[in-house]
Structures are given as structure tokens and as C-alpha cells.
């Protein structure tokens, strides 16, 4: 199961990185969202995986790590706020520069 989760993390991070490197703001937003998923699952998995061992006192014999969950919980919400900020930044850039290129202008492709 761990291998499966690691695979998922790898795919999420890889697709996220690839999309972050695109030139258009919308793709970058998609990429950051994917990367965010990957990072959240990664952080979550740092506590180790347990099935049916909810971190509620008295509900399970060998509760899972609650700390990573608490960290990831806020990370999810903040991640949303940051994505929203990015979207609005992209909109603003579109409004001011009339371009959705991350560099603010459609120039020649730089390598």
C-alpha cells in the first residue's frame, strides 16, 4: 500500500511540476493545485499509514499520528487561499497587461 501511495505522490508532484513550468497562468494554477495535493499527501504520509485507526481517543487501539493530520488540515485551507490569491493575481495581470503569459507579456520563447 505504501508503494501505491508513494506512486501517487510521485505522479502528483511530477504532473504538478510540469504544469507549473507552462507559460499560461491557468496551467500554472492547475499545476500548483496538483502539486498542492501531492505535497499534502506527502506530508500526511510522513506520519505513517494506518487503516481504521482514527486518532480519536477511545475509538481505536493503535491510533494514527494526529500531528501530521493537524498540519495538513491547515495546509489544505491555506493552500486554497494561496491558489485563490494566485488566480486573482493572474486576473489582475490579465487586466493590466492584456496577457495571460506568466512573464506578463507574450514575448519570444526564452529558453
Amino acid at each position: 500500500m505504501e508503494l501505491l501511495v508513494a506512486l501517487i505522490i510521485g505522479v502528483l508532484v511530477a504532473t504538478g511540476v510540469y504544469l507549473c513550468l507552462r507559460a499560461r497562468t491557468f496551467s500554472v494554477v492547475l499545476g500548483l493545485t496538483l502539486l498542492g495535493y501531492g505535497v499534502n499527501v506527502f506530508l500526511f504520509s510522513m506520519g505513517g499509514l494506518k487503516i481504521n485507526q482514527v486518532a480519536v481517543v477511545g475509538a481505536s487501539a493503535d491510533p494514527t499520528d494526529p500531528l501530521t493530520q493537524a498540519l495538513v488540515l491547515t495546509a489544505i485551507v491555506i493552500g486554497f487561499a494561496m491558489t485563490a490569491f494566485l488566480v486573482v493575481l493572474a486576473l489582475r495581470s490579465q487586466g493590466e497587461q492584456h496577457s495571460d503569459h506568466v512573464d506578463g507579456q507574450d514575448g519570444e520563447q526564452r529558453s
Partner: protein
Amino acid sequence: MMLPAIVLLPLLAALLPMFTRHLGRRWCALLVALPVVAALGLLAQASLPIWEGGMQQWSMAWLPSLGLNLALRLDGLALLFCVLILGIGLLVVVYAHYYLPAKDDGGRFYTLLLLFMFSMLGVVTSDNLLFLVFFWELTSLSSFLLISYKQYDSAARKGARMALTVTGMGGLALLAGVLLIGHVVGSFSLSTVLENGALVQQHALYPVILCLVLLGAFTKSAQFPFHFWLPHAMAAPTPVSAYLHSATMVKAGIFLLARFYPVLAGTDLWFYLVTTAGMATLLWGAVWALFQHDLKGLLAFSTISHLGLITLLFGLNSPLAAVAGVFHIINHATFKAGLFMAAGIIDQQTGTRDMRRINGLWKYMPYTAVLAMVASAAMAGVPLLNGFLSKEMFFTETLQSDQLGAMSWLLPLGATLGGVFSVAYSARFIHDVFFNGEPVNLPKFPPQEPPRYMKIPVEILVALCVAVGVFPAITVAALLAVAATATLGGTLPEYHLAVWHGLNIPLLMSVIALVGGIAVYACRRRLFAWYARLPEIDAKRVFEGRIQAVVRLAAGVTRRLQTGSLQGYVAWVLALVAAVLVWQLPNLASVTGERAMLPVDGVSVLCALMLIAAALLTTVLHRQRMMAIICLSVVGLIVSLIFVRFSAPDLALTQLSVEVVSVLLLMLAMYFLPSRAKADSNPLRVSRDAVLAVLIGTGVAVVALLVMTTDTATISPFFLENSVPGGGGTNVVNVILVDFRGFDTFGEITVLGIAALGIYALLSDLKLASAKYDPFGRPWAHDAHPLVLVTLSRPLLPLALMIAVYIFLRGHNLPGGGFVAGLITSVALLLQYVASGVTWVHKRIPGDYHPLVALGVLLAGLTGVASWAFDAPFLTSTFTHVHLPLIGDFELASAMLFDTGVFLTVVGATLLILANLGKLSLLDDKKETT
């Protein structure tokens, strides 16, 4: 408390001209002179124990954990320097009053001068090495301001810049050296370091330490090859030169050599480095001094030469030589300050400093002439003047050094040669300026004696030269003895201060120097002609050129890296990550740890495959935006299933509700951002990014796998055990959020609030032209609010709100809590926006969400502050059980109030973001209809 007062008085005085400058220069001079006099008085009192072999110390803990104490120490050496700094400083204050041009109110000048005096006092009295470096840098900065005092003069600015660059770099080296000393000794206290010289010298880092400290000293004291900045610092007003280049600034380097003498000196490396630098500087300065036609230029090179002489003495590794070095510090300070002041008088009275034009001034200003002549005779080392005594000691010491073995004769030879040129340039100063025919075409003619009181500082200094020269035993002996004792850090060698030592080789060397010097001066015409044929090297231009080259190089590198392309920057950062992974990951012995993996089941595999397929599809279809969003939402949903599967119901709930708002957000973004079907990345770039993505993805997956299968000790058992007794709740995740790590959460909701406000600000006045058609050319549907959705959504609202309240209340004990409840409430309200439109919703509920955000953060903060009332730290929680009729026994925790704050912030922020984004389309609609 006397020591800090001595150091701080000049700082106080530096502030006074700010208030008195409108009263004119006389008041400024008087008001800054008084604190200096007071400091001298305090110094006299503080010095009482020092004459009996003791010392004064004062310290105050500041940052003890970093070894930073405000510590001062007054021993013999510090006393000597304090006397020079304050004494000559006072004379310069008086002199400058008469020197400065009439229209200058002196405010800025005196402030800078006193600031410099303060920094110098700090350098010489610091008992903490870091403190010393701080003052050292302060001298560099304040001397920069003093040298560039004539801001309108490009030469002054360039000279100041050069001085700052050279001494500033030396300061950095000194800092590094001091940090290493602290590392080796284990303390930054100067007193401790002075006692542990052997420890430093035996350490493997000794050569590095020595080189770094010497770099600091040599740059400050203008030792070869760092001497070139000093002549250009002559662009400063003459009182500044008299102060900086006789007693203070350049002597700071010498002070450093003397201060660290017990710690660093005594080794062969010290001998070779310091002696070589000293000898080279001595000869270089002495020879070129003769050829300077500028009066101050001659004095500048002579200063370089004398600094070299002192450095050479410290390099000889003999206690007697060190005594001679300390003695020459005193002598050089007195005669050189006097000479600079005399040069300033001549400059002021004739309007020029060119010695080819200034001749025969004896006729016009005989009194000044006498003073200048005595001072230059002292500089030349003429008997019965102070320079003679220390130079005699210098000659003796060079004769006695045998560290060069068979080449030992080089030292006395070099010393005599230096003496010859020293006499030659002193002779030129006397003969060329005061005799040698008539003045040539002076800008001011005829020159006159300066105002009476302007000569007083010069008179005092010249009188000191004579007094020390004739009666060394009763004038300077005591001060020299305590200073030399402190320098050597122990017993004083046997020495004898006297004018007459009998007929011996040093006397012969003096005679050779005198006769030879006059002979050299006699054939000056041929020498000047030779000099004139030399290719002209302007150190300033060379230096500026090199600086420009460095700047160009830096600009070039910056242009290459800072292309302005954010896409490029991201690629660089990610490439670096990939490089680290590629570099380190192959070193792993195994990608799995010792813990056995959980068994795999079919449903999990199926879900994982769906997620992977959806993520890949999002990437492949990212230009077909609707499809990409749908795929992305599949990914998000399966991520929340992962949380469900691995015992994280709180996360699953949060992820699920965030997913809804995220998709709404992306839909809005899609609506406004231009659609674009064409690919605009070239294949090369695509493959480069793909490689980066695969590398980083693999790396992160490997790290995750390794950590997941490794048993690690965590702090989580603490939370599990203390959740009920400490936080009063069984849902450990929620208790961590609102109680154990409540401060974190508080920070996080603040970030959430700030992000929402930032978004609000970014959206204000934003005008966007949204597309009328979708990418396939079809117009957007006009049916904005489908009837089915509207009808279904309305009864959903109270139900959803009820669930939110339920989730919120049970949060402390079962999965749920403020974050999730807030998100559910937001989703329920957003559904109304989507179904019925912004206008409809805002008719029914106030659409202003900022107060909600503020209220939430405030409530959470106040809950934290409230614990102060019970003498508990910020955010301490408490809980109690209450019994209500009908409902029964339930628990009330103060954390619940905090969670309410979280709830309000989440609702406020989410709605603020999305409602305002949604309003943009409203503006667009209005534009359309009008």
C-alpha cells in the same frame, strides 16, 4: 560607570551641533569642546589605578548567548590611545573653527568629527572582540563621511569611496578573523583572549587567523600593498587629515597590531608577514614622499612611511622593538598632527598647496615657519626632538634582529635608507616652502600669519615634540611604560630613554641618514626630472577602473540570470531541486525501510489508477480547460478518499469541501482568462520540463516511500495521551489545532484573512473583458440561473447550515471542527450565489465579508488574550462540564470560542474571495446591458 561616560561623551557632543548650528560656528565649537574636555577629565580620574599597574573594566550583559557583552576595558595601551584621540581631537576642534570657510556653520563637520572620535574611543576601549569590530566598522563609515566632507568635489567623493572600499574589506576580514579567534578560544572577551595567546598560536587555524587580522590592520593602516587609498583621502579638509592621519584612523590598524601582540606575535609567520609589509611600506612611502609637489601629498606619503616603520617594529618580535613602536606612535601623532595643521594654515593663507609655487614664506609668516620647521625636524629625526628618540630605538632594534640569519644586514640597511629619504622629504618641506626664492604666482598674495588662536594647537603639539625630545624621562616615560606593559601583556624589558647614548652604530646610522638625506635633497632637480619622465599612474583611476570592471561583471551575470522571465526562474529553482535529488538519491542503499508494508486491496488499486490517470489527463489536456478542471476534481476527490482510507476523517471532510470551492474558483478563472488552443511551448522546452518533472516526482516518491516504511520516534504519543486530560477533547486532531498548537492555527487564520484582503485589494478597479464565446466559437448560455438548480438549492441552505453547526459542535470529540464547519457553511452559501446570482444573494444577506474575517481573527486572538487574566500564557485553554436540561451533560471548552474564531475567519475569507470574484462578471454584464 566612568568608562562608558568617557566613550559616550563624544557621542553626546556629536548630537549637540544639531541644536546649535543656527547659532554659528563659534557656539558649535565651544559646545563640542566642552564634553571632550569633560571626557579628558574623566579619563584622568579613571587612569589613576593604571599608573599603579592596574586596569579598569566595565561590562554589561547584552546578548550573552552570542558572546556579545557591552564590555569596556581601560589599560595602558587603551589609555595612551584615549589620550591621543581626545587630546588631539580637542586641538582639531579648536583648529577647525578657524580653518573652515566662513560660510560653513560647522554643524555637519563637528557632528561627523565627534562621531568619528566616539567610534575610535570604542575601538580602543572595547573588551569584547565583536564590539571592537562594530566600532571598527563605525570608524570606516564615519571616516568615509569625513573624507567626502566636500561633497561637491568629485575627487573627495572618489577618495572617500576608495577609503571605504579598502578599509571596509579589511573590516570584513577582521570580522572573520575575530570570529575564528572566538571559535578557538571559546570566548569573545578580549581579556580572556589575551591570556590564551598560546592556545591560538598552537591551533591549526593560526595562519588563517593571522592573515585575516593582518588584512584588517594593514588596510586600515595603509600598509603596502593597500597604501594607495591614503593619499587620495587627502581630499578631506585639512583638520580631518590632521586627525585621521596622525592620531586616529590609520593608527587603528597599528592599535590592532599592538592589541593582539600577546596573542598573535612571536611566530616566524608573524615576523615575515609584518616585517615585510612594514619595510616595503616604509621605503615606498619615504621615496615617493619626496616627489610629491602637493604639500599634503608629501605628508600623506610620509605618514604611510612612518606607519610602515611602526609596523616593522611590531614585526620584529622583540619586546624592546614593541616598546619603540609604541613610542613612535606617540611621537608620530604629535609631529604629524602639527605638520598637517601647519600645512592647512599655509594652504589657507596662500590659496594653494603646490610646493612649486609656495616658496620663501619665511618672509611672510616667520612664526608659522618656525613651528612647521621644528615639527618637520622631528619628523626627520633631528636630535633634541621626539622623533630622534624613537628613530634611534628603531635603528638599534633593526641592528639587533637576527631572524633573517645571514641576511640580517638587510634590516638596518633598509632602515637607514628609509631614514635618508625621511630626512630628504623633511628638508624639502622646510626649504621648498619657507626659502628657495620667492613665491610663484600665489592665488592669495601676500600671505599673512593666521589668527592668533589658530596657532595654539600647533604650538602645543610642537612644544610637546620639544619637551619629549629634551626631557623624555619626565614627560612621556610613565605613559610609555604603562602602554608598553599593556602591549606586551607582561613584564617590561629594560630600556633607557635618553638623548645621549654615547657613540654607537645607531648614532652613526642617524648621521648617515641626516647627511645622506640632505645630499639626496641637494640633487633633487635631477631626481624630479627622472620622476617627471615616469609614466603617470593615477591610483584613483586604476582603482575606479577595476571597480567598474567588477560592477560590469556583476551586471553581466545579473543580466544573464535575471532575464525577467518568471518561467525561467521557476525552471532554475526546480532544476536545482532536481540536481540535489540526482546527486543524493543514488547514495541510498535501499528505497524501503524495515517496516512491513500494508497489504494492497483491489479497490485501492483501482482508485490509485483513476487518480494517476486523472492527473495525467489534466496535464495532457491542460489547454482544454473545462476537461482539465473535471480531471482535476477527480484527483481532488480521490485524494479525499485516500484520507478516508488511512484514518483521517478530518482531512477527508476538509479536502472534500475545499474541493468544491476550488472548482468554483477555477471555473471563474477559466471564464476570465483567455482561452487558447494553440501550443506555445517548443518541443525542446516541453521535453526539458518533462525530464525535470519526472526527476522531481521520482525523487519525492522515493523519499516518501522510505519515510513511510521506516520506524521513527515521533512526538505524537504526547498528544494522544494528553488530549483528554490536557485539552478536554477526544478528537486529537482538533485538540491539536485549537489547543496544543493553537498559536499556529491563530497564525494560519491570520494568513487566510490577509490573503482574502489581498485578493479584495487586487480585485478593486479591475476591468476584465471576458470572452463572449467559448473556445469553439459558441456563445455562452444566457440562462444564468437554471430553474432546477435554483429550486433545489434553496431548501438545501438550512439543511447544510444545520450540518455545519453539528459538525462544529462535535468537533472537539469527533471529526469536525471550525475549519470543516466553516467550509461547509461557505459551500452552502456559495451554492446560492451560483444558483441565484450575486444580486439575489446580496439582497438577502449583507455581502460585505471583511467584518467577518476581522471578527474571526479578533475572537481567536481575544480568547488567547483572555488567558492572561488568569495569569496563564497566551492561548491557554480551559474546559468544564455543564449539565443542561434535556440535552444532558456536555463539555464547554474555551477552545470552542477559539474554534468559533476559526469558523468565522474561514467563512469570511472564502466568501470574500469568491463573492468578489463573482462580482466581476456582474460588472461585465452591466457593461453589456448599458
